[in-house]
Structures are given as C-alpha cells and as structure tokens.
C-alpha cells in the first residue's frame, strides 16, 4: 500500500509540474508543489543525520574495518550539532546587549564559528588542494600520446595550461595583437578551444542529458522506473 501511495504521489506531483508549465491557471499548483519539495528537502537533513548515525553506529558496534573513523565522524557530528543548537559561546547582538546568546550561532567568536573556521574550512581546503598533487602525478604517468585522440587531448591541454597563465603571453606575445596571426597567441587559442570546441561538445552533452532526463522523468511519473524507492523494482 505504501509503495502504491508513493507512486500516486509521484504521478500527481510530476503531472502537476508538467501541466503548470504549460497551462497558466494551474501555475499556482506547480508553485505549491515546488514549495512542498523545499519542505521535504529540509526534512531530508533530519533523515540524513539519522542515516549517518545508523550507518556509523552499526560500524562501531560490529567493529568493522575503520570503525575508529566512524567514531571520529560521530563525535565531530555530535560536537558540531551541540555547539550550534545550544549556541555555545555566542555573544549578545549589539542591538540587544542584555539578551544572552541573542547573536547568530555562526557569529564571530562563537564555538560554531570556531569549528567552521579552524576545522571545517581547513580540512575541506586541504582535501581540495591535494588534487594538485595527484593531478601532477597522473600527468606524469598517465597522460600519454598513445593514439590520435590522446594526442589531440594533449595538445588542447598544453594550449589551455599555457594560455591560462602569463607563460602564454611570454611565449606568443611577440605576435602582434592586431595582426592576422593574432589567433595563434596562446591566450586566443585557449579562448577558441573554450568557445568553439568545448562549447560544441558541451552543447551536444547538454541536449543529450535533457533528452535523457525527459525520458527518465516520464518513466518515473508513469511508475515504470521505481528505483528511486530504493528496492530492486
């Protein structure tokens, strides 16, 4: 019964969104459906938190490989949640100096702000920065001109890598900017690759994705594809 209900809700919401895009009097219904979606999206955070706790508690209780990391994850989650919910270290707002904790939870000086600035920001920036090292290693070991396609990719990468820095200006700056050969300057070649080749390829991909999304949406609305319900259907 619950599965049938989910399929009916999907059908009604899907049809409503499609119809509201074409028939003006039903536009308000589509807006209401979008608002329900936003409410559900906010509730998904609670479900996400519960799921996080369930997965990691189960890992810890069964002493799976890496259960220590799960313990750290849960501890970090609990501490961040607690300092945010209880507004630990939050100072009063200047407009209400007599009201304790009237400032925002992430106002400068609060415990949440401290966690955000000195833990979250540093850790995520570090993770992102590591890419430079792995990309450099991959460039040395894997980026080889093995065939025509790989060679074309390599040439494009060279032009973009040089054209996006001052090196491009130094190497081809001797070509007068107003001459017929100005298109050979690295910065111009880099722009051409973006605007012509990358743009053409991406347009094709975007159109393909749009058609795929339309087909998949139709299958979901009509109840043919039920994989979103998380079973083997």
């Amino acid at each position, binding site marked *: 019964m619950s599965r049938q209900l989910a399929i009916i809700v999907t059908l009604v919401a899907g049809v409503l969104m499609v119809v509201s895009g074409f028939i003006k009097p039903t536009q308000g219904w589509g807006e209401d459906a979008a608002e329900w979606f936003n409410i559900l999206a906010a509730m998904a*955070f609670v479900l996400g938190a519960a799921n996080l706790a369930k997965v990691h508690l189960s890992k810890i209780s069964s002493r799976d490989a890496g259960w220590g990391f799960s313990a750290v994850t849960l501890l970090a989650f609990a501490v961040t949640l607690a300092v945010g919910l209880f507004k630990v270290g939050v100072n009063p707002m200047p407009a209400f100096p007599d009201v304790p904790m009237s400032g925002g939870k992430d106002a400068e000086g609060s415990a949440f702000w401290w966690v955000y600035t000195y833990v*979250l920001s540093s850790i995520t920036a570090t993770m992102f920065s590591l890419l430079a090292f792995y990309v450099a*290693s991959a460039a040395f070991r894997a980026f080889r001109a093995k065939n025509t396609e790989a060679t074309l990719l390599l040439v494009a990468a060279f032009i973009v*890598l040089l054209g996006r820095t*001052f090196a491009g200006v130094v190497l081809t700056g001797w070509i007068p900017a107003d001459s017929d050969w100005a298109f050979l300057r690295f910065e111009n070649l880099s722009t051409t690759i973006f605007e012509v080749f990358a743009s053409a390829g*991406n347009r094709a991909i975007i159109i393909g994705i749009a058609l795929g999304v339309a087909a998949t949406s139709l299958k979901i609305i009509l109840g043919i594809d039920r994989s979103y319900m998380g079973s083997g259907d």
Partner: protein
Amino acid sequence: MSFIDRLDAIDRRWIFLMMACAVAIPIIVIGLTGARFPEVPGPTSTATFETIEALPEGAKVLFSFDFDPASAGELQPMANAFMRHLGQKKAKVYCQTLWASATPLIEETLKKCLLTQSPDLVYGVDYVNLGYQAGNEGVMKVISTDYKQSFPTDAKGTRTTAIPMMEGIENTSSFDLIMVVSAGYPGSKEWVQYVVSPTLGKGKPIQLVAGVTGVSAPQLVPYFPTQMQGMLAAIKGAAEYEYMVNEVIKAANPGKPLPPAYMEAQRRMAPQLFGHLLMVGLIIVGNTIFFVKRRQSRSGSAMKAAA
C-alpha cells in the same frame, strides 16, 4: 637500469615535492615582494565587468554564494571582487545561499569587502544577508514567482517583510542583476535553467553573471552570452576581473595605494603559472619516456624476429 627506466620508476613523492615547491616558492616570493603578473582581460571577464559597470546607482543585485570552504581558495577572490565592485557601484546587495556551509562566507565577505570599503552602509537598507534555504532548484523555482515565500526571514531571523530594502521585491525579476559564485550543484547551471531561461523572450529577461570553478567552466560556456551575460572562469577569470575592478577603485581614489587584499586573485596567478609549467614539464618528460621505451621495445621485438 638505464636513466629512462629510473626516471620512469621515480617515486611519486618527488613529484609531490616538486608541486609543493612550484606553488609555495611563488607564494613566498610574491608575499615578500608584492610583485604580480600583468593581466589582459579575456572576453568573458570583460563582459562580466561591463554588465556590472552598466548598473545604475542603487541597482538591486541578488548575490548567491553557492560554494563551500573547499572551493573558497578558487572562488572567494571572485566573491570579494564582485562585492567591492557592487560597493563601488552603490548597489543594493541581497545575499543568499543554497549551500548550507556557505552562510559564514557571506558574513565574512560582507564584512571584509563591502563594509571595509563603505562603513556607512546600513544593514537592511543597503545590504542584507538572507542566509541559507534548503531545496536547491526547488528554491529557485519558488523565488522565481514569490521570493519571500522561500525566504520569509533573513539570516538573523528578522521577517523579510520588515526589512526596508525588501520592499518591492516580488520575485527574481525584481532584481536588476543576479550574481552567482558557484562550485557545483546547485549552481550557475541551475540558475540559468530554472531562473533565467523561463524569462527569455519575455519583456525583461533576467541578467545573470557567474563566477565558477575551472572544472565547471566548460559546461557553462554554451550559456554565454545569451543566458549568462558574463562569466569568470577559475582564478584566471577572477584575476582579470579583479584587475578591472581595481582600476575603477584606483580612479575613484587617486593617489591612495590599494591594500594587498585587493589583489589576492592576481597574486594567485604566480603559483598557478609555476604549477602549470610543472604540469607541462611532467607531461613532456612522461611522453619522452613513453616514446623512448616504445622504440626500445619495437627494436627489441624486431631483433628477436630477425634472430
């Protein structure tokens, strides 16, 4: 073991060390000397600058911070330059985010860029922080018809109906310009698809400029310049735009030197240059090894066949 074999089997930690040096040394040198490379603005950065420059004084600008601290190294300089330019244009700035972890970034940008430049600005009159709203493109669809339905309060909990500068804001069409600095989903692509595209061909199409990461820039190029009037691609785009904004600030404050914080994107071009040169060098060396070994292997096979 030949030199080529040893080079091929090099420990990857040497490559990591080279990359660390290629990035760290320019940062230190630039920090000590204050030197920077000259910038030649490209077409998308110039279009971004000109779109903002064309705004009248007091224009209403919605600024969406759709990124997190992980990509702040690449995107924060854009957000800062955007905010300084808006301050210079005396625009009304409406900040919001669709990324939960971006709310402190808004406060920081407002404080460091807008209020440092123009300390007389009044919250709720000249600028507002509307905070975070869950729902991704669902929020975009709702604010396209009723902005206050999705943002009933600002980040401080004040009702948006009680904020003076929210008067007259019905939906996204009420803004003169939408600015998005985005690192992924939801981001500039969704803004184009759900907010800008439905207004194309109607009376007043929404104007949008975006600042995006290098990896997402190629996916957004097809939207420029029809759906997106300007785009800053990666730190290079940020540096070009920052250079143009600084020229405006210098012209408005003759004789006043610009603080180093106003050149953070341009300063990042030096580590980027040496990082890129190292990558090019590694690709050349890697391919030299590949071709030499392939020739050795072919000549070895030919000798075996002859024997």
